[in-house]
């Protein structure tokens, strides 16, 4: 080959390289989608725009739960290193962290991503932010982002409202569109009405620079969406009544549930002791939660829905009603107070139904239930009980006891109304008779109910035979009228008795007497080794009931002493807006747990 011809070899090398490069360019620029996606990831950042969460108002439109600004501190490691680092001691002091925990937060941020911001401090208050906002620019890589957090300035009905806090792993995996760092309702109404309150997040897409700073809208903002605010919910609660109830139940253990009988709307739900809602939404949630959890009075425990107690004497009214409806009892029937069968109290000896309710006569209702359970139809006391208990339980359940009351309160425990099957399990099939189970005749034994169930019972009595499924949010779907199955004529004598309980000089519930109002009520004293629970259910006014309620005061003694006056104050507060019974009020306000030993 002549040397001159070597120009073709050399030119060939030039052209070959160019062809390789052109091929590579075609591949990279037209087909390398993973690199295009990588470029998009690097240069685009989407910003979530939080919708305003729906507010929670009471039945009169007063705001119970609101939103306020919280300020989170975010840290981007690369921005910091690019600017030559920062004074960590100084920063730790400014944002109220220990140098150690700040160092830990920095390490976590480094591990997550050097060019993405990580949150190192949550929910500084507006006041703190105002103090540090002038200084924060001194720290490269540190920025403050505003987020909306929940606040309930009144701190009322915390158990009902529930918690609003950061999502956890389960929420992230639930496919409901939650992302790390989002907040959601975790319990109570916040959880139950999450989809209504939540609204819809908006997104803004940005082009970012190498330090992840926003520079311009991506695609001129065509992909951006605005947040859609969540809807407000209006509760059936009356905030003034709720506030008053929480005030008088302070320093006690117990519960009050008040219901508007005509509608099933819950007017107040007080679980004592309570806590401020904001204790569990703020930055100190962890510490607050621990101290609440470990408090001996168990303030986190929602007694209105979760505490189960034996119904006690109050149950006797149900016994009487069922027996009358079955035709085995007439209100005029008198039964001897035979205290050999079962203990009793008071000077009575031979009561009719009304008197038996007023005196809470145990032998009377022992006999009443015996007529229903041990009717002699089969000739065997075992077969009788086995046959009859089922229908009896069914009748009791018609009053809502042992049921979920329509399911408007997911946290509600249904309690227990024992059934044939339950006793078969306990004693063996047909190995139990009325004599085995008679303690349920006076509301003891295996019966368990919650304050909500008992308030609902008060509403059922007030309505003379039916209740509307209780609910706390207006416009709740699926509220329905439930019949007790008892003819309304049978309620007259029972309600008359309830009125006598309050008005009679020797009535157990006379402390429930309220000026200018006819209150119908029934005391209950639930046996407890640490001091009996004081229980009272009531409704008022008698003819046109506006409020029905149950009051529980744990370990306080007899129902008439503490629960009855509390019921009276609540009724007066709701129906007259003003409490005039100052002495009664003072006595209740001054009472604190533990109550002095009461004579039985």
């Amino acid at each position: 080959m002549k040397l001159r011809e070597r120009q073709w070899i050399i030119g060939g090398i030039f052209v070959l390289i160019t062809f390789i490069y052109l091929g590579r360019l075609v591949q990279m620029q037209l087909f390398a989608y993973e690199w295009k996606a990588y470029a998009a990831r690097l240069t685009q950042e989407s910003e979530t725009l939080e919708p305003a969460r729906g507010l929670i108002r009471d039945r009169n439109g007063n705001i119970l739960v609101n939103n306020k600004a919280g300020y989170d501190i975010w840290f981007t490691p690369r921005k910091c290193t690019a600017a030559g680092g920062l004074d960590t001691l100084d920063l730790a002091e400014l944002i109220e962290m220990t140098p150690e925990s700040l160092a830990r937060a920095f390490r976590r941020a480094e591990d997550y991503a050097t060019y993405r911001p990580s949150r190192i401090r949550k929910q500084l208050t507006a006041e703190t932010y105002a103090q540090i906002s002038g200084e924060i620019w001194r720290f490269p890589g540190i920025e403050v982002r505003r987020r909306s957090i929940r606040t309930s300035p009144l701190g009322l009905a915390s158990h009902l409202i529930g918690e609003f806090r950061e999502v956890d792993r389960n929420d992230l995996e639930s496919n409901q569109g939650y992302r790390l760092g989002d907040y959601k309702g975790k319990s109570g109404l916040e959880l139950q009405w999450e989809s209504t309150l939540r609204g819809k997040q908006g997104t803004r897409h940005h082009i970012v620079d190498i330090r992840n700073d926003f520079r311009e809208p991506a695609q001129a903002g065509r992909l951006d969406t605005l947040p859609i605010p969540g809807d407000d919910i209006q509760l059936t609660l009356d905030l003034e009544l709720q506030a008053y109830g929480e005030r008088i139940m302070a320093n006690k253990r117990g519960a009050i549930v008040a219901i508007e009988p005509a509608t099933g709307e819950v007017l107040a739900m007080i679980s004592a002791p309570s806590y401020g809602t904001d204790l569990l939404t703020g930055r100190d949630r962890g510490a607050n939660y621990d101290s609440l959890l470990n408090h001996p009075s168990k303030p986190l425990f929602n007694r209105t829905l979760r505490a189960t107690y034996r119904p006690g004497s109050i149950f006797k009214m149900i016994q009487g009603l069922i027996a009358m409806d079955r035709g085995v009892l007439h209100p005029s029937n008198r039964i001897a107070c035979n205290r050999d069968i079962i203990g009793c109290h008071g000077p009575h000896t031979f009561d009719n139904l009304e008197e038996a309710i007023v005196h809470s006569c145990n032998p009377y209702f022992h006999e009443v239930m015996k007529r229903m359970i041990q009717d002699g139809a089969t000739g065997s006391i075992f077969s009788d009980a086995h046959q009859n208990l089922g229908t009896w339980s069914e009748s009791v359940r018609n009053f809502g006891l042992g049921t979920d009351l329509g399911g408007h309160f997911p946290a509600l425990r249904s309690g227990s109304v024992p059934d044939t099957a339950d006793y078969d399990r306990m004693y063996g099939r047909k190995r139990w008779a009325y004599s085995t189970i008679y303690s349920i005749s006076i509301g003891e034994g295996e019966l368990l109910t919650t304050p909500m169930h008992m308030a609902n019972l008060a509403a059922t009595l007030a309505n003379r035979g039916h209740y509307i499924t209780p609910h706390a949010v207006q416009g709740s779907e699926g509220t329905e009228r439930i019949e007790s199955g008892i003819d309304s004529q049978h309620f007259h004598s029972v309600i008359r008795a309830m009125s006598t309980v309050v008005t009679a000089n020797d009535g157990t519930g006379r402390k429930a007497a309220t000026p200018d109002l006819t209150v119908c009520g029934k005391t209950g004293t639930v046996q407890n080794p640490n001091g009996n629970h004081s229980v009272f259910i009531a409704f008022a006014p008698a003819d046109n009931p506006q409020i029905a309620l149950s009051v529980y005061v744990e370990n306080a003694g007899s129902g008439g002493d503490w629960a009855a006056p509390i019921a009276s104050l609540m009724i007066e507060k709701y129906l007259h807006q003003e409490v005039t019974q100052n002495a009664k009020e003072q006595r209740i306000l001054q009472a604190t747990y533990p109550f002095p030993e009461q004579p039985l």
Partner: protein
Amino acid sequence: MRRTAPISQRIDWLTASFVLALMLIGLFNVASATADASTIEWFDFSGKLGKQLLWVGASLILAFLLLVIEGEFFIRTSIIHYTLNVLLLIAVLVVGKRIGGAKSWFSIGSIGIQPSEFAKTGTSLMLAWILSRNQDRFNQWESLFKAVAIVSLPAALVLLQPDAGTVLVFTGLILVFYREGLSGNVLIAVLCALLITIATILSGASTIQYPGGFESTGAWILWVILISIGIFLWATVPEWTVPRRRKRTRRTVLFSFAATIILSVGLQFGLEEVLRPHQRDRIHVLFGIDVGNPDADYNIRHAKAAISSGGFAGKGFLKGPMTAYGFVPEQETDFIFCTIAEEWGLIGTSATVLFFTLLLLRILTLAERQRSDFTRIYAYAVASILFMHYAINVGMVLGLAPVIGIPLPFISAGGSSLTGFTMLVFILLRLDAERFTVLR
């Protein structure tokens, strides 16, 4: 064309216009790469763009001056030119400013001057001078030795800076040797040696785990493969030749094989035993090997992403976010091709690549139409140097070559490289313009 035609008519305007086109591409992309949020400061002469604009102006004046100087001047001052460049390369090692780990710059006020960019012209002139004086070319060892020495001296000085990229550019002058008579086998041998070097470094850096729990460097695998190929070739290749040549062929195969193994084993030994770990890391990084630093391949990943995101038509002038917001490092200099790719897409990149190829092929045409050996050799040197810059720079950003920082001729920002390349090409154009007037 008449000998007496004015110089302006004798200049190869085609070459000049390719160069001008590349300079314009460069200016616009440097403008974009240095723009802050879409604001172009053309006339802020303290900024990178303003300086580049000044340098383009200076280069055009320089080009004009070079075109009016007699070609004979360049030829006769070749030795002076070369000597001056070598002295500057020595000086920079003494008084130079260390930037990015290499002592490559003289710092004069706000201007940095990189003597290695000018050394390419001096070396090319000197090489043309020596080779055109020796009629035997590469038939004698002496002339080969001289030629290699001329290139090696500045290359060695540049290696001391150290600036591996420019050294690599000097090795491209082997194309000149080849055109001037060096055996093609040498070209192939050098290519093979290069491949074996790369293969040894790459395989030597990997660790292979064998079943049974013991591990070794991947270089052993390479050696097993090389030995297998050697035995196979030794056994079969002589059969392909006529019988009387078989003995010689067998000897050649054996020699090549021995050289290959010595090179590979020696290199591996040197890397593992002689170099200190940080020096080895530096070589590994050069070849894109992960040395345990997550940011080591950061540049090239961002470069690839920027190129890819350009697509067919690009994002448009000043509209590439990776360029605008600092994702690509050194984007106005060594990585300027990324800006072209992101903002002008495949259209822009293929146009740029084609301009380079046409320029290179045009220079080959110029070379081959010379009656003067000096001009032809010089032209080949110019083509080789431009080719090496183009091939390494574009190959690097495309992820086909190791990350070696050398500028893209006429496009990358930087006064030394721009004026250096202008000198290189316009001296050639002046010499070419005189191709009818003189017989050298």
